[in-house]
């Protein structure tokens, strides 16, 4: 559905993305990860036609985003990091206006559908600038959905939201995934990516550094940290003897960091118990891989 080939974007001497290539099959939900300034938004803006590329090619449903931009834009719903809202407009009028621009035959009816889809029914008559940030984000989502696009590109839909609003938006994204649309989702909330996406693309310093199913990403290697009351040579030796543990590093203060092959938390807990196990934490798998790929090594 989406094919990106050797995409490069330079701003003068600065390279925002370089030789970026990936594919997203129809109906797949892909998490797009990377630190701030890694090139996520640039890639998304190129795909949505709001930014040109220096080199490379991108197609959506076989149509070139540069030469057949109009047709591509009809197929894409885009929510930028800052929702593109007109603060003085009433929610319902704004979404209908977006529908008109996107060529919907009956923009008023389409706006009503999109508004109810994102749970804005109660505030449809209100002026956008009077809404909370969470609701404004929903208005942005309604705008992206108003023409019922095959592809959704969402750039950090939960940035700047409080925890309750984040949960609301995550639930909404869950619902959207069930629509069987092709979705590219960029967010810093890795738990959301793990919950919603099957596949991730990780970009760092303008280059793709990983692209795979979450299950297969980064092999089987994981990190477990234990805190014991009596850390010492004996504890380290006991933990190193656990099957699947490849390394044990003493971080001081009774904390030991273990590198394991697969999920060995139960065996590690059993081995650490005689030394006064105080705490055991296994960093979320995606977070671990993300940090390793974007920061060079596991901190």
């Amino acid at each position, binding site marked *: 559905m989406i094919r990106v080939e050797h995409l490069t974007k330079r701003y003068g001497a600065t390279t925002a993305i370089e030789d970026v290539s990936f594919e997203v099959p129809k109906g797949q939900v892909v998490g797009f990860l990377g630190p701030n300034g890694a090139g996520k938004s640039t890639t998304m803006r190129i795909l949505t036609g*709001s930014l040109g590329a220096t080199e490379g090619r991108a197609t959506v449903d076989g149509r070139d985003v540069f030469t057949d931009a109009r047709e591509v834009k009809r197929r894409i719903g885009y929510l930028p990091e*800052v929702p*593109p*809202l007109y603060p003085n*407009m009433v929610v319902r009028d704004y979404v209908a206006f*977006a529908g008109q621009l996107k*060529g919907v035959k009956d923009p008023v009816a389409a706006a009503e559908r999109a508004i109810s889809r994102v749970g804005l029914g109660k505030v449809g008559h209100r002026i956008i600038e009077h809404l909370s940030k969470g609701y404004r984000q929903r208005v942005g989502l309604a705008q992206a959905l108003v023409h019922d696009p095959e592809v959704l590109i969402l750039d950090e839909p939960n940035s700047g939201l409080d925890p309750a609003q984040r949960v609301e938006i995550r639930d909404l994204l869950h619902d959207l995934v069930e629509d069987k649309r092709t979705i590219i989702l960029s967010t810093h909330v890795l738990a959301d990516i793990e919950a919603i996406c099957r596949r991730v693309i990780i970009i760092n310093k303008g280059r793709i550094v990983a692209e795979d199913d979450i299950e297969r990403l980064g092999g089987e290697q994981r990190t477990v940290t234990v805190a014991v009351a009596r850390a010492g040579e004996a504890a380290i030796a006991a933990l190193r003897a656990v099957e699947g543990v490849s390394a044990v590093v003493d971080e001081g203060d009774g904390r030991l960091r273990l590198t394991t092959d697969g999920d060995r938390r139960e065996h590690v807990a059993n081995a650490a118990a005689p030394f006064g196990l105080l705490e055991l934490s296994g960093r979320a798998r995606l977070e671990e891989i993300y940090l390793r790929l974007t920061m060079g090594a596991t901190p």
Partner: protein
Amino acid sequence: MRNILAIARRELSAYFATPVGWLALSAFLLITGFFFAALVSLYSMQSAEQAFSPYGAPDMNLNEYLVAPFFGNTAIILLFIVPALTMRLFAEDRKTRALELLLTSPITTTEIVLGKFVGAMGFIAVMLACTLHYVGVLFYLGDPDVGVVASSYLAMFLLSGAFVSVGLVTSSFTENQVVSLVLGFGMLLLLWVLGWAESASTGLTAEVLGFASLINRMEDLTKGLVHTRDVAYYLSFISFFLFATHQRVEAFRWS
């Protein structure tokens, strides 16, 4: 066309959704109303003086003594008010990031620019329509030439079009509405005073300055003389600045 009208409608309604539109409309009507009342009063006084003149009463032409000065003053008021109307057209969209909605919708840059232009012109049409009752008073009390009045309104509309096109391009260069206002007003003032500089120049310089001046082209129109060259001048002027705006908006895709 559908997209142009959709954008124009949104822009037009935005003027009525913010204080700027109402303030501009109120100020325009207040000032034009003051000038109209002052001109009528002056005309009446002069007519009365002429009527009692021992040398006889020459004909005081209503079109020459009232209609032309009224529209001359209206043009100057528009020079001040139009930049305040156009300052937000692109600057606000850039600041709120709403421009991204337009750039990622299946519409062309030409449609975006024309939509905003038509929206602003729609508001100016409302402003000018609100002055029709002044003309109604003239028709009720006197006998102004319909042709002169119609061509004067045409002049105001073309002049406003030129002002809006300049305002559009200056608005596209900044996210700051105040900067947009100052740039727009500065450019218009410069184009306005070229006519004055013409009288202080000679030869080719005077010809060029006279040609570029926005004010010179209006004079014949407010006298009821509609020359194709004047209308073509304004249309070319508007087209040039709309094209410049188009190019500027296209450049957003590369910045």
